[in-house]
């Protein structure tokens, strides 16, 4: 070798350490969030008197519960879009599928308390259905419902993803066919023949697990459950993206063909994260339905799916925390503005989106980082 050969590995080569699941500050924040969700909120809602300034109203509980469901969707979107670079315009479908599975169970729980005092859900009665169609077979069982909440969106995503990824459909082409899928499902669910309540969907739920659904306690229970799920999913997502698996996903996002030449088959990677993401959305949908009391095909509209992407982008892509924040900011703003400025709120919301893209390309989280960076 020539004089130019490299010296033996100097001890000084320090390899970057794999990051911990959460930093110390991260864990603290996480625990605070956990406490808020399962201790503070119930206390403020159930035990602080209604006229106190600290009382958390039922309306707020419902609103926050709903937004947490949206946050799960945003988190799921971040995994597939932020980290893997696959923009799905079909996550509304998975959300709705989870919701519908739950809705079917809740419909069955109404029992004979419906308008027509029939075993069958009301809408079937007045449309002359004589018995439950096949796809309602398992709707009686809560256990089966829990399974289906995962399986139905998971399976739909898996099959769709398998074919799409196998055919190497990428970029907008993928986005557009997810949109087509969702749109097709929307039309299908609108049809009364589909046996899922058509445009009206399912409403007027009465019980869950035999317990009345419209009580303060049940609402709080669902709220806490949603909070847990959100935080749990968050940790899981952190773990996923922190692993080499997560880095392969990012590599797929940057240069898929290079990933293949490194010996990875991108198909199972994409398929795995795609399915996981869909399942998360499905679970969010299932938690959402009993809290808002309605599921109908509106959730599958194009706009609904795009909104999920919007929350993610507002919060900051590929940050996990960002999308959750994004969901809270956008939906919080929406709830507030639709009341305070019912005729002008769309201007604010539109301006918010424009401002975020122009001045906060990394979303809110990026902005926070920048401010912190500037201070440090």
């Amino acid at each position: 070798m020539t004089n130019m050969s490299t010296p033996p590995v100097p001890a000084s080569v320090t390899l970057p350490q794999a990051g911990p699941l959460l930093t110390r500050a991260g864990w603290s924040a996480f625990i605070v969030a956990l406490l808020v969700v399962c201790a503070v909120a119930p206390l403020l809602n159930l035990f602080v008197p209604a006229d106190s300034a600290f009382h958390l109203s039922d309306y707020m509980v419902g609103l926050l519960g709903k937004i947490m469901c949206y946050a799960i969707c945003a988190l799921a979107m971040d995994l597939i879009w932020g980290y893997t670079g696959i923009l799905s315009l079909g996550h509304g479908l998975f959300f709705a599928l989870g919701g519908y599975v739950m809705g079917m169970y809740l419909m069955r729980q109404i029992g004979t308390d419906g308008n027509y005092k029939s075993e069958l859900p009301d809408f079937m009665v007045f449309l002359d259905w004589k018995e439950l169609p096949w796809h309602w077979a398992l709707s009686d069982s809560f256990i089966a419902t829990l399974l289906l909440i995962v399986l139905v969106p998971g399976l739909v995503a898996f099959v769709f993803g398998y074919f799409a990824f196998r055919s190497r459909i990428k970029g907008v082409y993928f986005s557009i066919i997810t949109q087509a899928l969702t749109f097709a499902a929307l039309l299908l669910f609108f049809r009364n023949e589909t046996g899922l309540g058509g445009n009206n969907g399912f409403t007027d739920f009465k019980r869950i697990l035999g317990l009345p659904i419209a009580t303060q306690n049940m609402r709080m229970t669902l709220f806490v459950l949603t909070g847990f799920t959100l935080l749990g999913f968050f940790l899981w997502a952190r773990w996923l993206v922190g692993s080499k698996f997560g880095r392969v996903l990012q590599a797929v996002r940057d240069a898929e063909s290079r990933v293949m030449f490194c010996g990875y088959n991108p198909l199972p990677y994409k398929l795995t994260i795609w399915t996981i993401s869909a399942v998360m959305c499905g679970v969010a949908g299932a938690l959402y339905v009993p809290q808002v009391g309605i599921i109908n095909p509106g959730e599958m509209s194009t706009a609904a799916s795009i909104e999920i992407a919007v929350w993610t982008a507002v919060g900051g892509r590929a940050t996990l925390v960002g999308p959750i924040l994004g969901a809270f900011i956008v939906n919080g703003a929406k709830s507030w503005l639709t009341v305070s400025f019912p005729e002008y709120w769309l201007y604010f919301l539109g301006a918010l989106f424009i401002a975020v893209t122009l001045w906060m390309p990394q979303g809110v989280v990026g902005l926070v980082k920048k401010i912190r960076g500037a201070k440090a």
Partner: protein
Amino acid sequence: MKIHWLRLLGLGLALWMGAGAAQALTPADALALVAGETDDRITTLNRLATAADERASVLIQAMADESVRVVGERVLIVQGDGALDAVTGERVAAVPEEAEDVMINNRLRSAMETALAGMQLVGADAARQREAASSLQRNAFDEPDASQLPLIDKALAADIDPQARQTLELARAAVLLASEDEAQRLQAAQKLGEARQAIVRPLLLQRLETEESAPVQGALKASLAALDRSLAISSALGQAFTGVSLGSILLLAALGLAITYGLMGVINMAHGELIMIGAYATWLVQSFFREALPQWFDWYLLVAMPLAFIASALVGAAMERTVIRFLYGRPLETLLATWGISLVLMQGVRSLFGAQNVGVENPSWMSGGVTLMGNLSLPWNRIIIIGFAVAVLVGVTLLIGKTRLGLFVRGVTQNRPIASCMGVNTARIDTYAFALGSGIAGLAGCALSQIGNVGPDLGQNYIVDSFMVVVLGGVGQIAGTVYAALGLGILNKFLEGWAGAVLAKIAVLVFIIVFIQKRPQGIFAMKGRSAEA
């Protein structure tokens, strides 16, 4: 005598109006015509019609035009601000406040039309004659009755337009199909073979059931077969036409996007709103014409077209200058920003013009349609829009493919910094390109206003379809956009023919999904290495 004097005056006025009257319209007649039970009114109508009184005919025509008002016992024909007394022909300066509309239902309307047709067949101009003849024909086909014969025969005896004659001969045949005379029936059966209207079919079938004479039966069968053939052809043609027509709509809606998204890579969620702006611009021009230039109303579209283009192009240029230019190379962010813009534009239109739809009228040359093969009527607005789409397409293709501007647009959109190093003012080209794409969306809006509703949500209905078309065709491939638009249009209409609109739409979406599996880069996939660059 007072009456006499009035009559004389009426006669005088009638003469003054350029027509002679044989028998005058009495106030009682007029009143009986405009009010009362429908049955009585129709009796009066028929009586007046056969009497062939000029003033009665004016009144009937006015009723058909909905310009008759009743004030107490007096029947007025509204003309501009003032009115004419239907009976006396006297001018009334202003229609009194308490004037009531005359109630006309469909039954009456049909009766009036037939009456007018009978009165107008002879002597009127050719177009009017044809119209009258078809009206009589429709009557005959609907419910053939021997009582219709005298009127038809009378008209046939006169010197009338050949086309009107043919129409009447068919009408006559329809009546004669039930004739006692076998020869007449045979002739009628043969004659009806020339009719190309589905409505004749039940007539022939009914006759066939009861017909005993073999030759007539044969003639009936032959005519039926001819009719069925012609119906099959026209329905196939009709289906193809609707497919092409839908395709042309999709194409128009997507062409602008093929530029802003396909070439420039801006995921323009506000594309639909740019279409909407074009439609509102059209509406504004139309309203202006209605107010200020009513005599030119029919030509408002010629002004609206460029204005729709300019309006949308300006909005597009403003979007580009203020927002999009900072987002090149970050396509996903353009999605977010343009989504925001679309919300603002939509709400802006709501605040300005209201949340409800606004009415855009077809100019008269775009209303109605041409009738082909007797049974296939192709609406003018559709035909013109197909032509318009082709024209816009040719224009865009030439502009993008053959001009220097087009070259710069393509160069800049592919590699902005390097194009700039070559001396291209990229900022300006970007604005031009985006404005062009937006302007084309505006043109689409102008066209769409002619067939659909114009409201703040207009764009939302087209955005999904537009993206599907552009993507299915292959991003950046204008030729692909054309194929995709036509393909989807025809497929959709074909499926709709036998599965219904909802299932057809679902099937088309599923088709898109499956098709992309086979062609992951759209119809016109970019091949080779350049695709990766």
